[in-house]
């Protein structure tokens, strides 16, 4: 397994290098004139003087050949300097890392909650088909899968924050402020995990190995915990990686609805303002995180299912 990890890790730098070209080129393909967009972002002015545009173009370094701009940016990135934001004129690195940290906490809490709720519910539902837990999981899951975050978030706020007054409606920084965004983000993966585990568990329960374990006198609970659930978790593990990778890159809807200062919100604003250094740095972080999440998923699957190691 160590060999697999090292081989996959060795691939990450070249993939990131290739990605860096795309990351550098993509924002420039968005259309519009960057300098005018930056002026608009700074001053809401639609009428910049051409001389002002020229001065700013020079200040931002956009008057240089694109290849020179790319090499400068790449060199800076390799030294840990991701540049300066066109709009805030502050270093990009700390801002992106801070936002990524917020998104990481949000994603990790949501994933943990989704697994903590979804896996036991799925196993319980599979253990007693058509029982109360199974029906609740099926119907509740259908609702959680169907209701989008931009609906669920405000509904939770209306009920829990406005109606009951238990929790704050917005912001980030205290445990109380994290609850509603985490619940909103966790609903979909929790429902998905419950469904996957239920289906996988039902299938594994029919295997000869499970019947053998029961015949040897193992209790139903122990059979479920030791022989069934770990095998049923394979598909959940496979889904957790992309979820984590995607959410670490920013849960834009949840971050906007709850005013959470995460990477998704930062990137959305940067795209609107054509803040190239922020877009570039943000995308690099997103890609790196996605690669690492994919690696972690693969390792987790290898650990859970020895057959895959061959």
């Amino acid at each position, binding site marked *: 397994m160590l060999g697999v990890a090292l081989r996959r890790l060795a691939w990450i730098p070249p993939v990131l290098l290739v990605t860096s070209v795309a990351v550098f080129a993509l924002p420039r393909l968005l259309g519009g004139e960057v300098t005018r967009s930056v002026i608009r972002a*700074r*001053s809401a002015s639609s009428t910049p003087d051409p001389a002002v545009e020229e001065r700013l173009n020079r200040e931002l370094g956009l008057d240089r050949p694109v290849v020179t701009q790319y090499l400068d940016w790449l060199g800076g990135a390799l030294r840990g300097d991701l540049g300066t934001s066109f*709009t805030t004129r502050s270093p990009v690195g700390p801002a992106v890392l801070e936002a990524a940290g917020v998104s990481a906490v949000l994603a990790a809490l949501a994933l943990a909650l989704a697994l903590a*709720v979804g896996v036991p519910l799925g196993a319980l539902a599979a253990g007693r088909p058509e029982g109360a837990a199974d029906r609740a999981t099926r119907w509740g899951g259908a609702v959680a899968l169907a209701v989008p975050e931009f609906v669920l978030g405000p509904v939770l706020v209306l009920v829990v*924050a406005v109606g009951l007054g238990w929790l704050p409606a917005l912001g980030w920084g205290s445990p*109380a402020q994290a609850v509603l965004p985490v619940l909103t983000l966790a609903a979909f993966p929790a429902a998905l995990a419950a469904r996957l585990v239920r289906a996988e568990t039902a299938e594994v329960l029919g295997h000869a190995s499970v019947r053998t374990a029961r015949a040897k006198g193992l209790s139903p609970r122990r059979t479920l915990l030791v022989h069934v659930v770990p095998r049923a978790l394979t598909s959940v593990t496979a889904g957790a990686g992309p979820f984590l990778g995607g959410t670490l890159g920013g849960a834009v809807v949840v971050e906007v609805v709850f005013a959470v200062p995460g990477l998704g919100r930062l990137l959305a604003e940067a795209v609107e303002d054509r803040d190239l250094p922020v877009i570039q740095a943000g995308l690099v972080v997103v890609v790196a995180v996605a690669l690492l999440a994919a690696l972690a998923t693969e390792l987790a699957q290898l650990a859970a299912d020895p057959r895959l190691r061959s």
Partner: protein
Amino acid sequence: MIRSVRSLVLALAALLILAGCGTTAPADQGVRVALQFPPRAGYAFDADDGGLLTKLGVAEPLVGLDPQGSAVPGLATSWAREGDGRTWRFVLREGVVFHDGARLDSGAVVTALTSVLSRPTPPRSIADLGMRVEADGPGAVRVSTDAPDPVLPLRLSSGTTSVLSPAAYAAASSSGGQPSPQDTGTGPLRMTEIRGTQGATLLRHDGYWGPRAASSQVTVDYVTEPQTRELALRSGDVGFAEGLPETSRASLQADPDVTFSEYPSARTVLLQLNGSAAPFDDVRVRRAVTAALDRTALADQVLGGSAAPAADLFGPAVPYGMTTPPPDGDVPAAQALLAEAGYGPANPLRVRLWTFPNRPELPVLASAIAAQLEPAGIAVDITVGDYAAQEPELLAGRYDMFINSRSYLSDFPDPAGVLDSDYTCDGSYNIDRFCDPAFDATVAGLGALSDPAQRAEVFRAAAATLTANAVNVPLVHPQNTAAQRGVTGFTPDPLDLRPVLPTLAPTD
């Protein structure tokens, strides 16, 4: 298994309850507000963030504004034009203390204005004037421009020309950054904590030269999503919120715990027409579009009353704006004008309408306009896209119709700059491609007019010329909204240029 799930549910419920315990705000925490627009450039003065600092009550310029938009004393108590009219002398207020304890003098003003003037992109209010600032003793400054400027005091009412403590500029100079407003302003509220674009904490500045802030503390949250601002207000998270969703207008008005304010904004939503190419190079076609549209229906029905119908470029937010409603839609008149221009069943007119979604009302208006123009014989294809990508095409005259939302005041209460950039032959934002030397001469004449009443007359005449030529169709003037819950003291400012937060206070 059942027991473990039960434990889990109980643990979650406990977490919810415990988390909720931490949300009750202590009584002495002052006021918490949800504002619509975060700082875009780290509170830089060469960006609109200077205006934001004025709104917060943190920083102040030399000149203040009264509710009508006239210049009143600010950090300067008086001003007068000197000699050839290119120089103004401003006498500074005595006893002004910065939040860091330094005293305001002419050196501080020179440092502040020179700093912002030396930026690659100085603020619109003072850019490209050849402005110079020099001290005239410790208690006065002289401000000169290359050409006589009749509205210089109004320009210096812009928040982008606010004055921070010299320490802020010294720190910026040594760090290579920009001056920070943290503990360096002169306003009634002192910015003690900056949380990026998430918020800020303001405390009352007890050494303020004017009326003290009504609340000991104001916690600012920048919330870009309208629905989140509304829910934060309803849940009691904040006591004041601005820019509320149009769909919540009625319920907020009906809520006995909420004081809802609706007031005009200095903004017009325009249907811009490309006057440099067929079909809109023909004034009859432009007039046909104007005649076919029912702007009252657009404001009252399509936008649910969240905007006022526009009769001309300027609206009720300014004294020279037209307050009478526009004429109702007249489809037969529009059809007659189109027939005169050679369009009809045999030669149908089909055009493309562009707009952008950043302001949610624009795509909605686009659909309504297409529906209103169809009976007149104009078929409209709609494209909703990214403004930044559309702008070069618009400025190059490669479009038919475009719905734009335009503020006609920039950093200070005078629309001469917008008339110049948007409607003169060489204007840098002349999307309508309107060019009339007589109009240009009218706008150029503003350079010699300092009397506000005379300037207002010119603004009225300019707007009338644009209407007569059907240069574009002013559709609606959006209404601003704000609401208070457990908070008093909000005064609507249609100009959006005056301090808002210093007068807010908790009701108990």
